């Protein structure tokens, strides 16, 4: 049997989706891994350059990696990151173990200890109970409830809409959503992502609007913004579609932090400090939908 060739792919310095440059680097890296695997190679990931792990980009990488490892078991390995904080974080959330590396660091860095990583196949939010027991000490009650509501709606949306084109087995068994939370500099960041069809495509499937308008890639941001600011929903049912607007309303109560949605080629970002919203078009798309809250800790 011919030996499988291993290709080394170097991970970028920053795992972030915030700018076109960071996003380009991260998505090219992830897509390169997938392309090599599909072409029959094994992949060794080098984290030698990786220094900055931002929740949005790191979660997307983790979710894609978990999915690729399911499809290509044993075909992705890695070295240990050169940066010790990065190694601690990847060890803490289990990624190093998935890549075949044993744990060798004590988790001592504060920026790592307060990261949590969860995932699920249903909208069962009981998995969040321990997390919220911890948050109750640090957040006011109305903030805890508001954050829970947003997270519950985000995972419900993943289950209901994101995988509408999946087969029965995938709908029942495949991990549908992933979550990170991080406490840093007096703020709590929570990110939830799915690898489904994305908000723009989900809405386009059900809308009867001008097809030319709908096929322009830079319209993704407008569709996300519409979904957040109104009851525009892929179901066209008046009693649905309240989740995203409620998430935005929740963050508008604060003077720091914000709320972001990244999906396909678009984004919607609300900055609570400036009380301004913005949308952006990205040349390279992210699969699925990623929702991020950033709220102040008490």
């Amino acid at each position, binding site marked *: 049997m011919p030996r499988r060739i291993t290709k080394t792919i170097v991970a970028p310095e920053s795992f972030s989706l915030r700018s076109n440059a960071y996003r380009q680097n991260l998505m090219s890296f992830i897509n390169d891994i997938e392309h090599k695997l599909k072409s029959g190679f094994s992949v060794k990931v080098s984290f030698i350059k990786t220094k900055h792990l931002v929740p949005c980009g790191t979660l997307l990488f983790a979710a894609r990696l978990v999915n690729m490892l399911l499809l290509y078991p044993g075909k992705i390995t890695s070295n240990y990151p050169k940066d010790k904080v990065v190694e601690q974080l990847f060890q803490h959330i289990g990624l190093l173990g998935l890549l075949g590396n044993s744990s060798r660091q004590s988790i001592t860095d504060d920026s790592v200890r307060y990261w949590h990583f969860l995932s699920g196949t249903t909208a069962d*939010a009981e998995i969040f109970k321990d997390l919220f027991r911890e948050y109750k000490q640090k957040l006011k009650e109305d903030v805890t409830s*508001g954050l829970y509501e947003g997270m*519950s*709606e985000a*995972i419900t949306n993943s289950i*209901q809409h994101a995988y509408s084109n999946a087969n029965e087995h995938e709908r029942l068994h495949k991990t549908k959503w992933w979550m990170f939370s991080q406490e840093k500099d007096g703020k709590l960041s929570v990110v939830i992502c799915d690898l489904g069809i994305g908000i723009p495509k989900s809405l386009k499937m059900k809308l009867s609007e001008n097809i030319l308008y709908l096929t322009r890639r830079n319209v993704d941001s407008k569709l996300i913004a519409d979904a957040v600011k109104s009851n525009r929903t892929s179901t066209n049912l008046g009693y649905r579609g309240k989740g995203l607007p409620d998430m935005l309303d929740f963050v508008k109560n604060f003077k720091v932090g914000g709320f972001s949605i990244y999906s396909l080629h678009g984004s919607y970002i609300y900055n609570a400090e400036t009380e301004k919203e913005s949308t952006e078009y990205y040349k390279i798309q992210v699969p699925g939908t990623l929702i991020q809250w950033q709220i102040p800790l008490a």
Partner: protein
Amino acid sequence: MEKVTTISIAKNFSEAPSGRYVSDGPFSGEHFRENLLVPALTTSDLVVIDFDGTIGYGSSFLEEAFGGLVRNHNITAGELKKKIKIIDNRKFYEDRVWSYIGSAKPAKEKK
């Protein structure tokens, strides 16, 4: 004698209710409605629903659990006003629940 049933969502159902339909997950609004709320409404004169003790409630859960009573069971908002009493010491949810009930439309007309 008036029969009163009390349902504590946190103790009798889940501290983390989430999801709209049964297909979403084990502690959905539909599950709560069909397995706890409707049986209680059917057999009791008054149903006291305690919203305290949970982490919170998503809008999908609340709308399906309570709006769904109107939509799926043709119970009117007026009838529900007489049969449901809500305990909500956090004061977050009662108004929303009645708003969902008030906005829901029956799926089919009563005969």
